[in-house]
């Protein structure tokens, strides 16, 4: 089997299972920027005016959660199929009833992880009431 045939077979075989990066998730949040949003100082309006809309909103906007993906490495399946190894990152923000930011946490999910655990952690183990 020559290189082209091998590559074509590998691509066809792996097309359904090789992870790809969801388009909307390649937008990362700058640590320096979100760390400038300090609990006790920033408000919900400051957050929205600085980093835009959260992907998740819970409990009448008491909690915001932002999500993005970070590629750590590339896996390789010879002869020439490579795929990204990534993990989701989450920025969890909690607001007081007066709209003041009271908690800011950054979570890193497991490789190809889903957001459920981060949502539970963010909302202090409460069940999510809204999903996007």
């Amino acid at each position: 089997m020559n290189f082209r045939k091998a590559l074509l077979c590998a691509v066809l075989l792996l097309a359904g299972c090789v992870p790809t990066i969801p388009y909307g998730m390649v937008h990362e949040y700058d640590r320096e920027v979100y760390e400038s949003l300090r609990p006790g100082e920033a408000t919900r309006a400051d957050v929205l005016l600085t980093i835009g809309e959260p992907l998740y909103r819970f409990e009448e906007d008491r909690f915001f959660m932002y999500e993005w993906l970070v590629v750590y490495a590339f896996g390789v399946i010879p002869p020439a199929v490579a795929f990204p190894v990534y993990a989701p990152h989450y920025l969890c923000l909690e607001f007081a009833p007066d709209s003041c930011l009271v908690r800011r946490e950054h979570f890193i999910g497991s490789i190809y992880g889903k957001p459920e655990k981060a949502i539970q952690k963010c909302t202090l183990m409460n069940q999510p009431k809204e999903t996007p």
Partner: protein
Amino acid sequence: MLRGLHLHIKLIVSLILLVVLIGGCRWTVQKFDPLSARKYEGFIHDGKTTKKEIIDRLGPSHSSYENEKILIYNVYLKKDGQMSLQGNDPCNALVLLFDEDNVLKRHSFIKYGCKDKEKK
């Protein structure tokens, strides 16, 4: 031996291409600097523009927060200085904060700051 070398080269080239392609597709969510945002602002002025004017010109917002004190529009910025509510590029968030009298208090353009970043 030579065939093995060819495979290695192809593998390395594929990896480099992948790194370049994925690397080139990463964007950081950030505020537009005020100077470059100014050309898109048009009728939007802090302390002057009312919520009614905004809604009359742009229609209903994509999202709202704090009893509509904060409105967010998904906007696409064209090179000619026009702001559009539809486009093919990744979308940006126009965040508008109003005071008690429904007059614009502060606003910002957040590059790639939309909730739904996917192409519409």
